[in-house]
């Protein structure tokens, strides 16, 4: 998390009062922000992909979200998908009007105008009145809240101070100042009286940290939440939320198996309750794809396909469901077709876009390994048809799989056949034991000789310091002091260059 620490200190240096542009560093942030660029390039392997032919129904998609994540998602689409950019940015702009985040409003507006210009459409004028108004309201409310908080503090009413900080945090959040939001929420800690308050605080901190991209922080607060889960009004929903957050953290740190497990455990009762972070459709998609990339066949059956709870999520995303079933029933061509259909949408997803290529690669590899498992030999032409790939490309992929020991086979490149490698256990064991025996003998001999050398006091010593040695003077002529050795190498005129020339 170096990148994140870095980010915070940078923000801190010019956090002088007025809210700044949000410094959220999520997988999908746009290119406008210099800070984000560097931290992103350090962490993500997948390059930014521009989608030109999206299959996304923007309205249906975005209606699942609320709050900041909705805006962030729209902005991501605005950045990555030129055909949808204008719609997305307009929608983001109208959503931003409901907040007080005037900095972002101005930035998004500029982006929208750039997009309009690119499309050859007339630009939209900036609503200066709203911006000014938002600035004023933000400032006034901030002053008011701070004043109130001061009063509470002088009166030392714990609960009021907590509320005061909470309100202040909410206000910062509305203004898009996440760093101060986080600080305010964290300050409530000292004024919590009930476990419930503590739980609320922990959850808020986790959520804001998630938005800030401070994942290490998120994990610690999730654990705190889980420990005090008894205090929650609705335990099921809270635990589902926590699973979602931890799933996202694991996804971001590319622990896909853990992420899959988290998403699979999310109770369906969560429904749209967490729309400010994640939609049920996302849970199905993330969970399904991560599971495909990391589970083996029996795990897939047991934990995903037979999972009654997760099946409900899958109903929301029929494509993912078909993909899972197709994979389980070894219909790989269908799977790959579905996956390529899904791909563009995933590139536009806030959390998933950085991992699409890696997860797809893993799924493909798993499919190939599974395809080959029941066979002694496989016709590469048929396999290529099943995977809808040219034979030559498949051959290279398989060679890589063999090299990484995922498949125990060899390629008959001439006849285009993949054959299981017949292991000759007997020869292997002979080879191994013989080499082991030789190795041990060498080691024992060396150790014994070393011991004799030590016993006989034949040690490497500095010959110049050791003139009193019995043979010291006599040997100096030949002693390998640094210059001596040069001499002896030179006078023997033994140069490996010469040796090798003779060999050639």
């Amino acid at each position, binding site marked *: 998390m170096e990148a994140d620490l870095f980010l915070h200190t940078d923000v801190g240096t010019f956090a002088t009062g007025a809210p700044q542009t949000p410094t959220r560093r999520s997988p999908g942030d746009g290119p406008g922000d210099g800070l984000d660029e560097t931290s992103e390039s350090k962490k993500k392997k997948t390059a930014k992909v521009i989608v030109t032919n999206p299959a996304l129904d923007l309205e249906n998609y975005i209606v699942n979200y609320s709050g900041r994540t909705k805006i962030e998602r729209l902005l991501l689409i605005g950045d990555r998908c030129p055909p949808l950019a204008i719609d997305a940015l307009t929608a983001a702009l109208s959503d931003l009007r409901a907040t007080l985040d005037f900095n972002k409003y101005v930035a998004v507006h500029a982006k929208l105008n750039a997009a309009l210009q690119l499309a050859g459409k007339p630009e939209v004028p900036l609503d200066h009145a709203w911006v000014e108004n938002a600035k004023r309201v933000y400032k006034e409310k901030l002053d008011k809240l701070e004043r109130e908080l001061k009063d509470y503090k002088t009166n030392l009413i714990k609960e009021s101070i907590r509320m005061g900080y909470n309100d202040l945090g909410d206000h910062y959040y509305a203004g898009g100042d996440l760093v101060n939001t986080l600080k305010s929420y964290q300050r409530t800690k000292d004024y919590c009286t009930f476990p419930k308050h503590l739980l609320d605080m922990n959850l808020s901190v986790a959520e804001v940290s998630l938005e800030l991209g401070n994942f290490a922080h998120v994990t610690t607060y999730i654990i705190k939440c889980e420990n005090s889960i008894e205090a929650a009004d609705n335990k099921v929903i809270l635990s589902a939320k926590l699973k979602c957050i931890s799933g996202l953290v694991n996804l971001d740190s590319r622990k896909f198996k853990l992420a899959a497990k988290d998403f699979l455990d999310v109770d369906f009762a969560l429904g749209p309750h967490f729309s400010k972070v994640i939609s049920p459709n996302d849970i199905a998609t993330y969970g399904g794809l991560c599971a495909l990339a990391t589970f083996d066949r029996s795990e897939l059956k047991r934990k995903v396909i037979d999972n009654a709870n997760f099946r409900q999520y899958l109903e929301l995303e029929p494509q993912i469901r078909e993909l899972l079933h197709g994979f389980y029933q070894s219909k790989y061509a269908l799977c790959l077709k579905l996956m390529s259909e899904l791909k563009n949408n995933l590139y536009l997803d806030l959390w998933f876009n950085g991992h699409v290529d890696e997860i797809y690669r893993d799924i493909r590899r798993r499919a190939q390994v599974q395809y080959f498992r029941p066979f002694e030999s496989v016709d590469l032409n048929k396999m290529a048809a099943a995977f809808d790939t040219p034979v030559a490309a498949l051959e290279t992929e398989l060679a890589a799989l063999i090299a990484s020991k995922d498949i125990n086979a060899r390629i008959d490149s001439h006849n285009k056949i993949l054959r299981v490698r017949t292991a000759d256990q007997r020869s292997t064991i002979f080879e191994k034991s013989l080499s082991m*025996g030789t190795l041990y003998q060498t080691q024992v001999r060396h150790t014994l*000789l070393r011991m004799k050398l030590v016993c006989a006091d034949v040690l490497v010593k500095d010959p110049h310091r050791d003139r009193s040695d019995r043979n010291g003077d006599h040997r100096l002529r030949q002693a390998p002091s640094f210059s001596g050795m040069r001499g002896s190498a030179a006078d023997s005129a033994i140069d490996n260059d010469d040796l090798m020339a003779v060999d050639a």
Partner: protein
Amino acid sequence: MAPPSSMTELCQAARDLSAAPPEFWRTYYVHNTKTFNDVRSGTIGFFTSALRDGSDPLSGALRPDDHSLIYLHVLLARLIAVDGTATPVHQLAANGPRLIMYAMTFMNHFNPVHACLAPEAMEALGNHLLSVAARLGKAVLAVLPLKVGCARWATAASATTVTTTTPAMDITYLTPLHAILCKAALLANTPTAALPVLDRDVTEVDPEAFGITYQDHLLYCYYGGMIYTQLKQHTRAMQFFELCVSAPGPHVSLIMIEAHRKLILASLLATGALPTLPKYTSEAPVLRAAKMYSNAYVDFAQAYASGSAARIDASYRAHEQEFRQHGNRGLARQCVEAVTRRAVQRLTDTYLTLSLQDIAKSVGLATDATPSTANTTGSNGGGANANAGGGATSGADQTERLVLRMIQDGQVFAKISSRDGGMVSFRDAPQRYTDAATTRRLDREIAQAMMLANRVLKMDRSIAVNKDFASKIASAESRGGSGGHGAGPGGIGIMVPMQMPGDYLMDADAF
């Protein structure tokens, strides 16, 4: 008895003493130390003179077996006289060959027990012998006498120590002649000549009887490693370099650093990776020194382990100057050339059949005829360059030659079929371990292992009854075991092999 003062007197005395036991020769040697020292230090006295009747005492008056000590010193005195820088060339040419012949006679017949009385003289003899042969321009002349002498001396029971223990068949002492022999073999470019000696592992070290110092040990291991490298027995070469690098002691010799460099390159050739040094290598000095002086090699090895031909080539180019300075350029170039071979070998794990073009592509021969490969193929160099313009076909041609050579060398097991423009089908190693030779080999290995186990056991017992050891253990126990580690330098040296028997026997059972 008064010291002899002329050659005739000396020979007379020697004849009288023909049947004397070794103990007598010891007192004789001590008695005449001054005279012998004069011989060795070059202030020769009458030792170079002929007999009164003008004949050479070496040709009959002295016998190498009965009068080893005297014969040795007379011979040495003559070699020194001829070897001096002031000696005119014609004199060297006239006397040199004859003296080498006498040396051969001596080496064939000398009494090893007597030789142990004057190891310094033996070493001086070896050095001057080689020097004279080299100045005659025929270093090879020195190889045979040195080999015979080395073999006879190393395996004979020493007069001082071994008399008490039962002599075993496989005992081999380190002699000062070992290193000289290896050097001679390298100079004469006859590496195989030293093999009979090198192939016998040294088991005993006795500085009293053989006058060896750590340089003898280091140089022997270093030169031995070089000989095996030249013979392309890289694994064995690694063992020798490793012995050199891991030699015990608080300081680092430059020989060890040179050996470390060569060890890295030999290891690249044998295994393709950086060598792992034994745990007991004196970490701090050796590794620190290696870091200071062998950075280029470590860098090259890391590039090598990456397996990328481009990176290896770049690293080689970057350090070529340094390799050349250290005289390791040829070895490093062998490594570079072996990359392609290693890549082909790896392909056998992945493919059953593969066309020549595909091989060329995947080992990187197709795009450009890599200059390093083209050059090192020597006689083929011209042909490869001529074909370089031909693109894919030249790559395939080159690959075909490469695969062919690898098949001949037994590095891959494959068949090349000319159908479809060249198809290579790889097969498994034909070694099935079903023949009588395997059984014999197993028997031999087991016997050797048991012998080693016995030796360890014996040593273990002899240490257990050692008075110093017992008292040290007793005092350590009385102090509650805390002081055991801080014992003297001998204590640490003894503790290391003490752990071996258990370990080793356990694995012998698993055979």
